[in-house]
């Protein structure tokens, strides 16, 4: 039996890890993106009291390693009487951490948007929320596409940190196969292949979205 | 060379530039600084230059006129091989540029660089190197191409910066300068190569109107000192005042070649007549 046969026999474990990684990742980035949009929408109002807390939140997340945030949630919160399961700590961590990054990316693009079209929207009777959803957000998403793509890859890679707090993800699968049967090279090559595959699929999706943006004349990105 | 450092007066520089040109002419196939023969060039099947002949004698100023898209900039850029012509030959002081005469193959990078050092170019968009000060922009090529010592190159550079009225900005970086100032530094950079010919590619086209005069003034003073120059320009009065010879390009063809008086007062072709009328 070759080492690859051993890995093949452990495919259930790998599959479980793959599903865990994928589900955590997809739920988390959906929520994170929503969070990012909400933050940017809040910051639309120049006089909002949320300005300082939101800015600080973004800046703190940008200066913190993801694993430290997860440590705070998983090891730190029980001191405050809140006990989270590893999976939930991971999900909440990913959502808040990458939500802040999405907010920063969208905010950066928002600054470059011309004020004229916003005045035009008000002149046509749009409410602020409708204008944000119908006019601003679509443009931000098309413009920020490459940066959003990068951030998705970062988020995917950050899920691997959750192995350290015992989430049974892809990296956990590789580690346990390698520890049980002592086939580290094959187990990890297989798992890295999975990560690579997911990011290639995302890259293709982003490129496809890019063609859409191109058609609409957003060429300068 | 070192006497230039101590003695900034222009005649000495001029004399040395002249000597150089005549030195090279001795024993060569002609005494033209630039000689272009049957030059043709196409971009994607569009012929931009067709069988161009042009000669520039030492100390002469030749201006190339023509409407935009007539191929005049391409012709200039072929002279120092920034564009590779498809057919024809170019000689600089009797030496062929671009093609090795012995092997008939493209010149080595080194040989080409050596040929280019004999010509200098002033660009429409200045193309100063933004990471270097004004002085270092001017000394860069003398030191790293011609192998001059730093002190010698700096003394030389300062004398040329003085000539274009930019010596007081020697330590400034290009981003702090106005367009006219940048172009004057670019001219000093070209002069510092002590080239046999200076090529000007629409040197005032990127300038605000009020800055054009200072640059044209510098070029005029150079012509009075006997520098050999080929100038692509849209400034008609300037061309008339400064040229020894005017050539007119139309759709890649050289359709008129004359001294400025004849060109501007008695043009031979209708095309040039119409072109001149449109200018006023």
């Amino acid at each position, binding site marked *: 039996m070759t080492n690859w046969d051993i890995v093949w026999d452990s495919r259930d474990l790998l599959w479980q890890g793959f599903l865990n990684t994928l589900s955590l990742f997809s739920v988390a980035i959906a929520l994170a993106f929503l969070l990012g949009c909400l933050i940017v929408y809040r910051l639309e109002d120049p006089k909002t009291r949320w300005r300082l807390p939101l800015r600080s939140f973004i800046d*703190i997340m*940008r*200066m*913190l*390693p*993801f*694993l*430290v945030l997860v*440590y*705070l949630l998983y*090891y*730190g919160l029980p*001191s*405050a009487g809140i006990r989270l399961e590893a999976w939930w700590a991971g999900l909440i961590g990913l959502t808040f951490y990458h939500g802040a990054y999405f907010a920063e990316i969208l905010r950066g693009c928002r600054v470059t948007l011309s004020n004229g079209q916003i005045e035009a929207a008000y002149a046509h009777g749009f409410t602020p929320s409708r204008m944000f959803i119908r006019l601003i957000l679509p443009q931000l998403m098309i413009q920020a596409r490459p940066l959003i793509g990068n951030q998705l*890859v*970062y988020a*995917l*890679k*950050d899920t691997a*940190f959750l*192995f*350290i707090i015992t989430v049974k993800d*892809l*990296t956990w699968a*590789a580690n346990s196969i390698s520890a049980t049967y002592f086939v*580290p*090279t094959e187990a*990890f*090559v297989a*798992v*890295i292949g999975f*990560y*690579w595959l*997911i*990011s*290639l699929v995302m890259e293709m999706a982003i490129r496809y979205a890019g063609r859409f943006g191109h058609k609409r004349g957003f060429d300068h990105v | 060379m070192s006497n230039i450092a101590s003695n900034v007066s222009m005649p000495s520089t001029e004399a040395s530039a002249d000597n150089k040109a005549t030195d090279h002419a001795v024993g060569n196939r002609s005494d033209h600084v630039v000689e272009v023969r049957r030059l043709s060039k196409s971009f994607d099947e569009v012929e931009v230059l067709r069988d161009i002949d042009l000669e520039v004698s030492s100390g002469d100023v030749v201006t190339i006129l023509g409407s935009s898209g007539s191929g005049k900039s391409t012709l200039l850029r072929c002279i*120092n091989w*920034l564009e590779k012509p498809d057919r024809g030959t170019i000689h600089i002081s009797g030496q062929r540029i671009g093609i090795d005469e012995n092997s008939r193959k493209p010149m080595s*990078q080194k040989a080409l*660089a050596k*040929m*280019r*050092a*004999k010509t*200098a*170019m002033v*660009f429409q968009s200045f*193309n100063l*190197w*933004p*990471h270097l000060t004004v002085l270092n922009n001017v000394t*860069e*090529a003398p030191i*790293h*191409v*011609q192998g001059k010592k730093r002190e010698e190159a700096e003394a030389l550079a300062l004398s040329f910066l003085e000539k274009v009225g930019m010596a007081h900005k020697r330590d400034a*970086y290009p*981003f702090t300068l106005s367009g006219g100032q940048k172009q004057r530094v670019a001219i000093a*950079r070209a002069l510092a*190569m002590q080239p046999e010919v200076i090529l000007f590619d629409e040197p005032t086209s990127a300038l605000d109107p009020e800055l054009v005069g200072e640059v044209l003034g510098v070029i005029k003073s150079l012509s009075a000192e006997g520098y050999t120059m080929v100038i692509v320009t849209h400034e008609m009065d300037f061309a008339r005042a400064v040229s020894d010879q005017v050539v007119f390009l139309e759709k890649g063809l050289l359709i008129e070649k004359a001294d400025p008086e004849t060109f501007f007062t008695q043009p031979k072709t209708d095309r040039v007549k119409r072109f001149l009328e449109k200018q006023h």
Partner: protein
Amino acid sequence: MDASAWPMLLEGAWTTLWISGISIAIGIISGLGIALLRIAKIPVLEQCLVLYISLGRATPLVTLTLFIFLTAPSLGLNMDRSLAGILALSLNTTAFNAEVWRGAFNNFSRDQREAAMACGMTSFTCFRRIMLPQMVITSLPGLVNEMSFLIKGSPSIAVIGIVDLTRVTNRISAVTYEPLPPILAAAVLYMAIIGGLIWLQRIAERHANRLAI
């Protein structure tokens, strides 16, 4: 958390810093090397480098670190933990830096290169004297940004038992049974380090913008 915890935290911070520092230095230089090799477009090698960069960007650091550390013995290599950590971080950051350098090369102004050619510079002189100094300035913001990403990824070396600034908090709380204070203290130290880098990046950006004019 008492006073004895601080020296441990600082020691953890030092471990994070020196391992990251070495990896950053390796990553910047080998990133430039790889970018230049890619620009040279040597067949086969070119495809290998594209594959490396694509894999390097997609592989999580934790996974890569474990992979290197666990695989090395089966290849007959005796790999020290720190070395495995440095190797993993460098392999990762090199892939990103190579793209930053390549971007700076490809976006370099054609006009300026022509001006250098017109002065009689060879391609090599032009690269050394005109392009490289400016590529350093224009790449710096991207490189510094990548440095802060490397520091943020550096806790991954904890999985192979290196006691860095993150893992040291486990050590401290194993004694004090109070995990929150050391984690918060570590967070503050990380924020100081990465905040410093973000500040540096801003200065680098200001410098780079000057060249753009």
